[in-house]
């Protein structure tokens, strides 16, 4: 019985190990091809680089020059960091207020925000980019407002679910002690929201960092984020530089992998919590 369990566990381990290798393989193949000459990639992507095909870091240099990747990295970082901070800050305030103040306005706002979650982006893509244009929000600072508005639904929904579980007595005690609502929120409630705040931050980071169509339509003609820079390499079909493409894919993956390995525990927990509540 014991021996049989051991054998089963070993077989499972081997199976999972092969599967893990298969899952990592596509990324490793891209990495390998990023060191090959551009004409040796599309036809033989599974061949290791050899003395004839190996060209060192040349693809990286040509890719960086063609896409402005370094600039795109800074735009992506700027937009993601400030949008996520803004979203966590303002939507937690809104969620607390409309959860605690029971009124018709509150529940109207709540359902309106939740409703926005089910609307596909294509429904508003044209009109939203026009609005951004008219309101002069079509720049890396203005797009933060767009992200706050478009991301508000999910974030308010997740915060509200958590706030309902916080006992009201804590806040009532603060009010009796003379706190204004602003003091109550920032001194008492906001610190309690920390775990769910991390969840909201992670979900929004994953969304905004990888988002393509919204930034492409709103700021894409003047400012390229990483996904826009990668897509830009596509160009006309057939004419694209496969070498530069491989190198840029590698550069696009590296920040995500670093982010993942540093915050892995929070990311997986956050995503599960977000899914279960959302």
């Amino acid at each position: 019985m014991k021996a049989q369990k051991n054998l089963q566990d070993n077989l499972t381990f081997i199976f999972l190990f092969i599967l893990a290798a298969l899952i990592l393989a596509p990324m490793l193949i891209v990495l390998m091809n990023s060191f090959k000459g551009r004409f040796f990639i599309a036809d033989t992507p599974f061949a290791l680089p050899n003395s004839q095909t190996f060209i060192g870091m040349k693809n990286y240099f040509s890719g960086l020059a063609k896409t402005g990747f370094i600039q795109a990295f800074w735009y992506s970082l700027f937009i993601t960091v400030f949008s996520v901070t803004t979203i966590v800050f303002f939507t937690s305030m809104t969620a607390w207020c409309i959860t605690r103040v029971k009124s018709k306005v509150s529940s109207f706002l709540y359902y309106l925000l939740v409703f926005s979650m089910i609307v596909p982006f294509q429904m508003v893509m044209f009109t939203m980019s026009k609005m951004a244009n008219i309101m002069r929000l079509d720049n890396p600072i203005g797009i933060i407002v767009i992200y706050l508005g478009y991301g508000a639904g999910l974030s308010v929904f997740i915060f509200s679910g958590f706030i309902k579980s916080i006992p009201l007595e804590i806040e009532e005690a603060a009010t009796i002690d003379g706190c204004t609502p602003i003091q109550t929120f920032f001194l008492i409630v906001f610190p309690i929201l920390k775990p769910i705040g991390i969840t909201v931050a992670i979900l929004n980071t994953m969304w905004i960092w990888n988002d393509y169509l919204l930034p492409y339509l709103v700021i894409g003609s003047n400012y390229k984020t990483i996904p826009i820079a990668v897509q830009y390499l596509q160009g006309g079909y057939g004419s694209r530089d496969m070498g530069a493409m491989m190198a840029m894919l590698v550069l696009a993956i590296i920040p995500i992998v670093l982010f993942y390995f540093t915050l892995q525990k929070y990311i997986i927990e956050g995503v599960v919590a977000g899914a279960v509540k959302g």
Partner: protein
Amino acid sequence: MQKMPKKYYAFFTLPTILAFVISFLIPFLLGIYLSFTKFTTVTNSQWVGVSNYIHAFTDDRNFMNATIFTVKFALVSVVLINVFAFSLALLLTRKIRGTNIFRTVFFMPNLIGGIVLGYIWQLIINGVLIKFGVDITFSADYGFWGLIVLMNWQMAGYMMVIYIAGIQGISPELIEAAKIDGANSWQILRRITIPLVSPAITICTFLTVTNSFKLFDQNLALTAGAPARASSMLALDIFTTFYGSMGYEGVGQAKAVMFFLFVGLIVLLQLRFSRTREIEI
């Protein structure tokens, strides 16, 4: 706190609500209005009634094709992703060594953005297909199965962690009791594990259905709809209608409204389904 002075209420809600009105509410209402007009910019719209909706079906077969493609894709990917993810979750809750590392690796593709994923898989799939003298743009079937493989690679790990959380929530005493009563592992799976993780099944089905329906980035990067527009899903078809040729903005917007109604309907069905299930349990 039942009441709050108006100025505080405004302080807490106005920043979010203003941004929401600018980037969602006005665009949404304007979008519904524009779907009944002919326009190239917002200011030159002319009322044309429902003709955009009729055009969406009669001009060409793109919209119907995209709808069929999307529904087929959603059905196949929901089943495959969930079966795959659930099996992985079962294997990873058997307390064997390396569980944490495997979980980390399986979840990782979920963090990579759709555009990057699309090009990674384009390289791999074309690398295989070239041995047969074709590439992914040769037939919409290749695009279809390519997207299925891609989505499994991306989402199975995500669904897996939700299933793991569900399976770990089952109290070990139940399994223990079933074993003592002589249940075999298939019976335990069928009669205990699956019923008890049904909330997780509901969540995962919902997530995979909505993600499959709204798929855009992966579709754009992997095939861009090729050949012609045969492998376009709904989101990409709407995008192409809008920005692909002048004069079809109204039709694009009408398609977008129908897409929204479609997604809305699925969400409502899903909510109703999960409510009735909760009552049963």
